[in-house]
């Protein structure tokens, strides 16, 4: 006769034999005879083992208990998962089982009492496992901000749904805490044995579970608040961007004149911070020395020494390159304006008398004098240049200077 252990092992062997079929059923939702490499035998065996249940058109789905198990193992998230839904019901079983234990003990049915105690242990563990699993699941959802849904609106709905689930679990925990089960077990026959598992699995964990629930609630509420803010912000930015697009000439108003500046506008610009080590502080000597040693020595800049040479003899000056020596016509102008008196002197007559400029053409000489006059130098102050003009073609614009009478004006 097969023992209970054998039954479990046999069941697992059967599941293992058809593992591909089970995996396909979990991932694809339904399987049919075409998926069964044993030509339908796998479907039959798994159906007998209650791992698969008939669905429609000769297809099968995974049994929900097994699907839940895989969900837990693989941490698969589902929309609006009934997380912690059974916590209240599981908790309600405990007083019923403890009553059954007490009744069996009073009536002397020891075997029954042992059996009920075993069932109580299982129920306690199931409750503890359910609460822990629910908290873990909720924590993951809260931390990943409902990553399994894409849109903001769905995230918000999920968030609100799970906040409600958290509230229900919290209510169930409060009910467990205030049920008075501990007092009841303390005063009932065989209660001590029940208390042991109840305390270790439930009562001792209650504060931790409640703290976890508070954490999760805080995260969910904060995220809900944030998503509401984000929604408003997204709408606002879209509207502002559209406004900017439609109003290319828009320039934000000046705000410094406002009596009440918004907080953000009062942001202070930063300082340009720069510190230097105090070289006069003896306490820093060692550190500075260490730094100084770590700096590689500067390479001396090599300046090539020019070779000693000899000065060359100055080349003879080129003809006409007399440097600052005045030209003959300059000397002649100088001489004329310094020697002239009140009596007008004809420039042309004076030139004829001066041998140094005898080679100078007459028109150039007259031009030199006109130039001297136009410069209005200090040395020509009081010197009058009176032009003797020849008659020119009327309206031609031409002025023909025949001579210049140079004289010194009365002081």
């Amino acid at each position: 006769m097969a023992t209970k252990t054998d039954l479990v092992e046999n069941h697992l062997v059967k599941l293992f034999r058809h593992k591909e079929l089970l995996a396909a059923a979990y991932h694809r939702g339904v399987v049919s005879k075409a998926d069964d490499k044993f030509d339908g035998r796998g479907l039959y065996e798994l159906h007998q083992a209650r791992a698969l249940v008939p669905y429609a058109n000769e297809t099968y789905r995974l049994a929900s208990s097994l699907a839940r198990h895989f969900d837990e193992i693989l941490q698969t998230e589902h929309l609006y998962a009934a997380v912690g839904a059974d916590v209240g019901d599981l908790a309600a079983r405990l007083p019923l089982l403890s009553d059954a234990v007490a009744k069996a003990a009073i009536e002397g049915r020891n075997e029954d009492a042992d059996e009920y105690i075993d069932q109580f242990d299982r129920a306690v563990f199931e409750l503890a496992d359910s609460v822990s699993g629910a908290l873990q699941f909720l924590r993951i959802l809260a931390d990943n901000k409902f990553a399994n849904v894409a849109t903001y609106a769905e995230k918000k709905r999920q968030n609100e749904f799970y906040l409600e689930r958290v509230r229900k679990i919290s209510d169930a925990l409060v009910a467990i805490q205030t049920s008075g089960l501990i007092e009841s077990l303390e005063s009932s026959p065989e209660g001590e044995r029940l208390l042991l598992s109840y305390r270790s699995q439930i009562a001792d964990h209650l504060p931790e579970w409640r703290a976890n629930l508070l954490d999760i609630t805080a995260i969910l509420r904060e995220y809900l608040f944030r998503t509401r803010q984000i929604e408003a912000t997204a709408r606002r930015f879209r509207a502002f961007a559209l406004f900017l697009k439609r109003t290319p000439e828009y320039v934000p108003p000046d705000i410094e004149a406002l009596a009440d500046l918004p907080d953000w506008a009062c942001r202070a610009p930063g300082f340009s911070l720069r510190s230097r080590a105090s070289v006069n502080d003896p306490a820093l000597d060692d550190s500075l020395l260490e730094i100084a040693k770590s700096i590689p020595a500067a390479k001396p800049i090599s300046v090539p020494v020019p070779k000693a040479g000899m000065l060359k003899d100055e080349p003879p000056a080129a003809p006409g390159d007399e440097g600052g020596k005045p030209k003959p016509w300059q000397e002649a102008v100088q001489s004329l304006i310094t020697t002239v008196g009140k009596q007008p002197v004809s420039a042309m007559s004076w030139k004829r008398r001066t041998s140094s400029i005898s080679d100078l053409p007459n028109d150039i000489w007259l031009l030199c004098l006109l130039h001297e006059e136009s410069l209005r130098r200090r040395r020509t102050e009081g010197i009058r240049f009176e032009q003797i003009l020849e008659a020119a073609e009327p309206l031609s614009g031409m002025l023909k200077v025949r001579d210049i009478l140079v004289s010194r004006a009365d002081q």
Partner: protein
Amino acid sequence: MFEQAMSLLLSGEFICPIRYPDAYRYLSEETHQKDVTAYLARIGRKLSVTGLGGGWYMSFDQIGQDQRRAVRDEFSRIKLDLRFLVEFFVKAMRASEREEFYSRGDKIETHALMAAIDSNPGLRAEFQALATVGRGSGSDGKLKSNLDRQLKYLRDEGYLVLANPDREIYQVTGKIEYLYEVVQFLMGIDGIADDVDEEGPTTQQMF
């Protein structure tokens, strides 16, 4: 940590959990906030935080003539950048098909964004046009160069950090919340409604 947080505040940085996580954690404690506030008060400054709590910064304790001048200078900078900042983030949001606006910690993957823009001629044109908004035109006029330059600018301005240089993934900093506040204020003061019809009047409505 006081020294680090204070140096950052004094140099005008935004301290957010993305860019300066240690300093941000430090400032999250009330006793540390009091220390920092007491220090800043001695130089006429105070510790401020964005409305959503994502960024600490230094602000003026009192607003006198000199401070108003500084406020004007700061706002002038914001004015220059505002159009570019708003348009960039809104367009990036549209390219990435996001319903939410960017918030601190959000990632911007350059390659994904580039691919999204590239596959949509309308967006491509808009991003090319954006290249000339505020920031001058790109060096070679190519979309990728422009996008890189825009992202670098946002990084330099403290709105993004380069979270993964190899994969060119940026992360939005808490300074984005400062931008929220500026936009919210301007929309309020200029009476800009936030429920405008994005599509404009339909043909049916026009008749």
